[in-house]
């Protein structure tokens, strides 16, 4: 997995790239969580994520819940087909913010 963070005003956009599994979830959290803790609105661009497993889904849930707790939000953008399928399999399409 690789990533790039860009800023647009109060919004932090995290572009994730590659495969997100148990081996990279800590790295993903290290990138995303400080932005949420800084109370930024975070957009996760998932266009280039070709694979995500339950560990990756856990990162999305954790990020969403932390953001809600701190009064901000995480919005999932440009979700790749394969990631959307896993989100739907987990029945989270009504829970997470899909933008």
């Amino acid at each position: 997995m690789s990533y790039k963070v860009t800023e647009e005003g109060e919004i932090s956009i995290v572009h994730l790239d590659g495969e997100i599994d148990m081996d990279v979830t800590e790295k993903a959290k290290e990138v995303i969580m400080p932005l949420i803790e800084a109370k930024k609105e975070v957009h996760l661009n998932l266009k280039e994520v070709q694979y995500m497993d339950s560990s990756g889904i856990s990162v999305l849930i954790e990020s969403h819940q932390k953001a809600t707790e701190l009064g901000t939000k995480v919005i999932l953008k440009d979700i790749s087909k394969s990631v959307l399928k896993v989100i739907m399999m987990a029945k989270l399409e009504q829970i997470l913010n899909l933008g």
Partner: protein
Amino acid sequence: MNNLAQISEQRDFVVSSSSLKDVRSFSREVFEKVNIEQDLKDELVLAIAEAAQNIVKHAYQGEDTEDKMEIKISLSNGNLEIGFFDKGRPVEKDKIRHRKIDDIKPGGLGTFFIQQIMDAVVFKEGEKPWINHLILSKKIDY
């Protein structure tokens, strides 16, 4: 592409989260030989990777080890069987369950995915030298 595939392939992997990408590569290589929809191939790869992840997470509790796990993918007459063999802690079958799907919290989804994708999930005691033997099976139309 094989419309009448009779497949039996196995490979060993070090029990580590860093092996999961190799598990996926192996699974993808095997399913490339079978004439089934890409969506189904992706689901099967996910189920296999989730089961391998459970070995790393639960049978070994994330501990560093040089132990290997073995994954065997067999397809015969439309019956897909995927065997997982490991030497970790014995699986306590009664404790294996996915979280309630409407209880939204991180974790506990891997087993749910496996059960969604596969027709049957069976835990057996492994024959020596293995401790655990997990069998995932699914009827495949191709």
